[in-house]
């Protein structure tokens, strides 16, 4: 089943692929943007709509529909921003795209910019990706020198300038409005929505923010057609292939590319990734980056895609799959995850600023064996008081895992409280 398909990205993940020469020769380089620039904007958008490409950053929003939200007759300049912040723990796919196939991303951005009528683009890359930022800059310079970027791209009279903007290490700058604030030189804090970026985004202009993998898929859609791309997906309403980042206690962790909706979580963990390290038993899987609610070992016979996972109360998110084996303390894990969100809370809205620290304190107490019986109920209530009530999704990202961990692994928490220590040590 998995042998007979051609990967879009992974086959090019080698150090030779990042040059313009390779891109032109082996990947039909910049033919897609040439083709798209000759198409009317609406046609490009409808091709992307046909492709069933859904945002690869986490929310899974249909890309074509998002592009369609850009107001046609805006007097303000429009912007296309590539979200390369990749800050969700457990996610490391965009890094490979930028490292190995930067031109694919640039090609996709030219097409996207044309589709929404933007003449300025930014790649907002996370601060830690120093090497990737440099490689992107090299690729951008190459593209400028050959007329694939800049004024009058490939003779089409379309101008597009692309800038790499490095972040300074805040998780929340992966949230699109936080990203835009950071891009504008402000504090990296999410904005109130509405207005959504498509109405008023970067510098007040209509703005589309797309993930790296999303934009890198665009050239294939233009060259081979939306329908072809859509058919790559093996599940309704989800086209193309997906990059899965598998980490944790598996024998073969790494980035895997599979047709969307083609495997179950069990096949991915035990088949593709070779099973659990040391042939231990599986304890839990976090399927979509650390903010996704956890799944137990019994829940992994589920197709790894947006809607099947949503149906069982979790999410595919950025497809960062974290596998946990039986000998890892689940309380320690959720305390560490909560510590991350506590550290990354921007501090502007009340439930997140106060709630994250409170949850961390309670979890810390439980892990150290100092928990009280009533702490679990309190923990769930604090998490519930945050869920869906914060300004941005970080509150949910922090509360969701806590709720799912306590509900699904309650016995582990109780063992810590009653035994006054971690039973694993």
């Amino acid at each position, binding site marked *: 089943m998995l042998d007979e398909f051609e990967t879009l990205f992974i086959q090019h993940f080698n150090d030779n692929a990042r040059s313009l020469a390779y891109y032109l020769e082996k990947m039909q380089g910049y033919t897609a943007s040439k083709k798209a620039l000759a198409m009317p904007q609406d046609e490009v958008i409808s091709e992307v709509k046909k492709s069933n490409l859904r945002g690869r950053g986490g929310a899974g929003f249909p890309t074509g529909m998002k592009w369609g939200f850009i107001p046609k007759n805006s007097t303000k300049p429009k912007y296309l921003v590539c979200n390369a912040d990749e800050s969700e723990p457990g996610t490391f796919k965009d890094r490979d795209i930028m490292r190995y196939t930067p031109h694919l991303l640039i090609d996709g951005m030219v097409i996207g910019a044309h589709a929404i009528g933007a003449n300025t683009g930014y790649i907002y890359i996370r601060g830690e990706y120093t090497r990737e930022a440099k490689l992107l800059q090299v690729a951008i310079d190459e593209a400028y020198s050959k007329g694939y970027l800049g004024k009058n791209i490939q003779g089409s009279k379309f101008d597009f300038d692309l800038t790499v903007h490095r972040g300074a290490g805040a998780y929340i700058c992966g949230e699109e409005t936080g990203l835009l604030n950071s891009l504008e030189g402000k504090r990296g804090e999410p904005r109130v929505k509405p207005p959504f970026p498509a109405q008023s985004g970067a510098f007040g202009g209509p703005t589309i923010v797309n993930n790296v993998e999303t934009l890198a898929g665009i050239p294939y859609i233009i060259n081979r057609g939306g329908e072809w791309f859509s058919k790559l997906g093996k599940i309704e309403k989800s086209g193309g292939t997906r990059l899965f980042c598998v980490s944790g206690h598996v024998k073969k962790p790494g980035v895997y590319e599979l047709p969307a909706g083609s495997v179950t979580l069990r096949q991915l963990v035990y088949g593709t990734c070779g099973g659990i390290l040391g042939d231990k038993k599986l304890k839990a899987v976090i399927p979509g980056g650390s903010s996704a609610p956890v799944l137990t070992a019994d829940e992994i016979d589920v197709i790894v895609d947006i809607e099947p996972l949503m149906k069982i109360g979790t999410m595919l998110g950025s497809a960062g799959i974290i596998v946990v084996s039986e000998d890892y303390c689940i309380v320690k894990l959720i305390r560490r995850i909560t510590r991350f969100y506590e550290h990354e809370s921007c*501090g502007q809205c009340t439930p997140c600023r106060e709630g994250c620290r409170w949850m961390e304190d309670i979890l810390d107490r439980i892990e150290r064996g100092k928990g009280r019986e009533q702490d679990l109920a309190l923990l769930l209530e604090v998490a519930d*008081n945050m869920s869906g009530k914060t300004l941005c999704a970080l509150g949910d990202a922090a509360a969701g895992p806590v709720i799912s961990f306590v509900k699904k692994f309650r016995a582990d928490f109780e063992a810590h409280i009653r035994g006054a220590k971690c039973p694993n040590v």
Partner: protein
Amino acid sequence: MSKCIIDGREVEFTPGQNLIEVAKKAGIDIPFFCYHPGLSVVAQCRMCAVEIEKMPKLQTACSTVAAEGMVVKTKSPRTAQNQKAVMEFLLINHPLDCPICDKSGECDLQDNSYRHGDLYSRYTEERRTYLDLDMGPVIQKNMNRCIHCTRCIRFGDEIAGIREMVALQRGNNTQISTVDGRALETDYAGNYADICPTGSLTVKDFRFKKRVWFLKKTSTVCEGCSRGCNMEIHQDANVIYRCIPRENMQINKYWLCDEGRFNFQYVNDENRVVAPMVNHSVSDWGLSIDQAKKVLMGKKIAVLVGSDLTQEEGSHLLEFLPKHFPGSPIFHFGTPGLNTAEKDGDADRILKRKSKTSNLHGLEKLGFQGFDKMPKEINAVLVIRGGRAILPDLKGLVAVGLGVFMAPQVEEFSVILPGTSFAEKDGTIVNYEGQAQRIRRAILPPGQCKGLSEVLMMWVNSKSSSGAA
């Protein structure tokens, strides 16, 4: 007119209004902390979240614009649960030091805690604490009480035009502070305390002086410049403790400058002359008036009228002066270098005007003329002022003063007849736009100070003949 339904009631609204304002108009209070009608909307405190039909999540009322047919529930169990949760979150790190906090009694946090919070705390961890740096002479900071509403940051940025308050650090450690811990620079710093929903920023001058529930409030108008900002005087036992701005969307919106806010201090000043003075020593009213008439007798007199007097006082003088000081020129004075209303203008881009007196424009309408320089033949002056107009150089002429004077000024006057300040009288003042506004008496005049009309009456009825006549 568009309509929506709030708590089962049909409420009219103008398109673009947010739910807090729409509900308020209908008498429904939605609690909030970070929202302020004069500042941008950030939806950070989450206190105003309400249930709206057809929306899965609670929506913040401050950032939600009312729409035709929208069904809003501000008192549903879900809304109430969120309010309780937000109160709990805000209070877990709040010191709850209301007994020693100046904000207590007029504190949004305290009020909403009583209305929407829980009686008990479930928090057992150590509370977060901060070290505070001095913020200059106007504002006292107590970061431990802060609930991070960012109103102060937005006020500085959007109203005062200076980005001096900022958020430092992130997340739970977020600290609201001045840039580099510097002293506040704006002339509008007092507003920081007004808009602070807790006792995190309080006015140093008012600190520990009075519990706010003892204060009696009088709506009046500031006499600090020709804008005529609306404000309240707060007093207890005939002592003014503070002035705070009063909303007037046409004139000052919600704000007041520090100069206007602290202008009242001279009213209770221990240096104020509160008994009639003759030759620099205390006298009584009858003798003082006689003496005043005596020193002015036979002199070439000019009458200087402070443009801090009210229209009523001005009218009285226009009746009184021609009869009792016939032929004497009459001038108004108030701001050095600004002797006509024409020269008045904005002193900054916010509220302040160049004319440092309240009624320059009104007195000119009554026909008073500006004081430029003393005519040559003059050898005596009668000065009539409130407490605000700045005295011109009297060049050692024989002088009689009527109104508010301070001890150091006594040297210049042969006779002083103590009068009333803006806080001790009723009257009308006219601002630079021609807007007539009422000032109201907040306290009784101190000592033997008397209102102008009473003094004029005594002058008329006194036995000795009038000064010049």
